[in-house]
């Protein structure tokens, strides 16, 4: 188990910066999710930590030791790949034993370590099977077992469940969380699924265009996004352009208090933060409803033509075309991608 410090890490391909002067500290035993859209640099950053990419500049300190120039096999890290990357000509036992044999463990030690991790990932009895005889979820468990059997200080997971179905993904992420807690291993998990990050992480690092947009706990990231990008990327958010003038923001005919400098700003409000019901203020019309199980997500057209998303209680039984009254609840204002005001 170890701490990780990234200091001004950059990775440039010709003129393009995949990771741009990024710094981050991860504590011993923490599970951190790198979250971002495709091309945000999260996998490149993970691959640099694992030693598969050499940083153009910066330091990667594991327990205070710079490992930036060290090859992957000499680092105290282990990587679980998106495509499982199992060796198809070896059975499960051989896949897991390969790294142990390279480290010259005795036969008894290898057997004992493999038995322990097989139990940990719930695959005892599958030792003689080949990868082709396993399901996708089982293959990913073998890949995890192959990595943790080497007792790395830092476990790196690169979108490990991307190829699995939603149900299995939810199940496996719970297992990963349990294993991580059991072993207390520092873990970095790359994903582009915000639900995965919100459910799994101690802290989330939201990335965009090779830079960190925000670092925080899942609650902080969801409730208090620091940038407009994070606000739009995490969860569902209504983002509406509005003009601030004299400390007031005009929105759908209402004046909202906005003690910020005059000019254009982006109003951000979550669907669940609208007030709904008689006397809420804005008379609107439901234009579309989507049943999301516990609640209904409705598209609501405001009098000025703006359409916003609103969470509605299922008990309301609204239909498309029904009139509805909504009012603005807690909101945030963004300008130049940074938050400038929260109500």
């Amino acid at each position, binding site marked *: 188990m170890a701490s990780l410090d990234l200091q001004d890490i950059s990775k440039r391909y010709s003129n393009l910066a995949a990771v741009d002067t990024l710094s981050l500290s991860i504590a011993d035993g923490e599970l951190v999710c790198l979250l971002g859209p495709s091309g945000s640099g999260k996998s490149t950053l993970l691959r640099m930590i*694992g030693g598969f990419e050499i940083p153009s500049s910066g330091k990667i300190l594991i327990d205070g030791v710079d490992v930036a120039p060290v090859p992957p096999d000499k680092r105290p890290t282990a990587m679980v790949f998106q495509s499982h990357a199992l060796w198809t000509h070896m059975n499960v036992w051989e896949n897991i034993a390969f790294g142990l044999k390279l480290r010259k463990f005795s036969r008894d030690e290898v057997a004992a370590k493999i038995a322990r991790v097989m139990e940990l990932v719930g695959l005892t009895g599958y030792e003689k099977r080949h990868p082709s005889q396993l399901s996708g979820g089982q293959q990913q468990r073998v890949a995890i077992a192959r*990595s943790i059997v080497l007792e790395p200080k830092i476990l790196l997971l690169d979108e490990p469940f991307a190829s699995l179905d939603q149900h299995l993904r939810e199940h496996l992420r719970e297992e990963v969380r349990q294993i991580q807690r059991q072993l207390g291993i520092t873990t970095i998990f790359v994903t582009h699924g915000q639900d995965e990050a919100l459910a799994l992480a101690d802290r989330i690092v939201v990335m965009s265009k090779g830079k960190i947009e925000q670092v925080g706990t899942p609650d902080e990231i969801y409730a208090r996004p620091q940038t407009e990008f994070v606000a739009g990327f995490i969860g569902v958010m209504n983002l509406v352009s509005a003009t601030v003038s004299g400390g007031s923001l005009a929105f759908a005919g209402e004046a909202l208090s906005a003690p910020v400098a005059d000019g254009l700003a982006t109003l951000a409000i979550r669907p669940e933060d609208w007030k709904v019901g008689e006397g809420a203020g804005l008379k609107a019309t439901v234009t579309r409803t989507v049943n999301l199980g516990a609640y209904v997500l409705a598209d609501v057209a405001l009098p000025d033509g703006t359409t916003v998303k609103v969470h509605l209680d299922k008990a309301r039984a609204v239909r498309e075309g029904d009139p509805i009254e909504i009012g603005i609840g807690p909101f945030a204002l963004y300008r130049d991608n940074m938050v400038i005001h929260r109500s």
Partner: protein
Amino acid sequence: MASDLAPPPKTSKNPLGLLMIAAPVVLMGLFLLYPALRVVLRTFGAADGSPGFSLENYARFFNDSYSLNNLGITLWTTVVTLILLIVVNLPIALYLRFRKGRLATFIQALALFPMFVPGVIICYALIRYIGPNGLLQSLLEHVGITGYQTPIMTPWGPVIGLLWDAMPFTLLVLTAGLAGISNAAIEAAQDVGASRLRILWSIVLPQIRGSLVVCTSLNFLSLFGSVLQPYMLGPTSPELMGPFMLRTFSSVRDPLQAGTQATITFLICSVAGLLYILSMGNRRKAEKETVA
């Protein structure tokens, strides 16, 4: 789940399917299998053509030191060429698999170039270049190196010609096999501490075993029965089985003995063929297991 899989199409009871394969099967039977079977059966008769079973023709072949030498040199040429094909092409295939860019494209084009040159042109080019009084000898003498021994008309002549000729096919099969290994599989091995040599030995080679078997067995078939390169670049004595059969048939005018030589060649090649069929069978079995 196997039970979820659609049943295979019942082609055996489909008259249209039978009709479609009827013409090629009849043609194969008439013009390939029947004459081949006749020749093989005749070789198990008496040398003078009298009826009855006899191993006389085979006894003649195996008691003749010249024929045995020819068989030996053919086996030697085939095995040496096969080894060189793998030794030369595997590093190129590995380079092409793991390196991208202009140099890799150029090397690939260069390695596949022989595919587009007729064998007879290759032979003439080799004779003019590395043959006696060829370009190479002249160049060496220009820089003061004398005593050049040409490989043409020695057992190495056919090896060089066959190597050139079989290189593109071998390279294509090996690169196709290597393309099936993901970068992540290599990186995973690197991650657990394997050196490059260990990755090659424990991860790459076992995963291209099928491709190695395919190019070895198919090359064995074409090398063992080759005629052109051994005829144009090889020694006249001992000679390889291809030119030997040709000469026995057309110059010596002994079709029965040529048939015997061909049957022996066929039986040796069947071992390579069997290896190929077994390899294909294993691959299908593995695919079936993956589907199940």
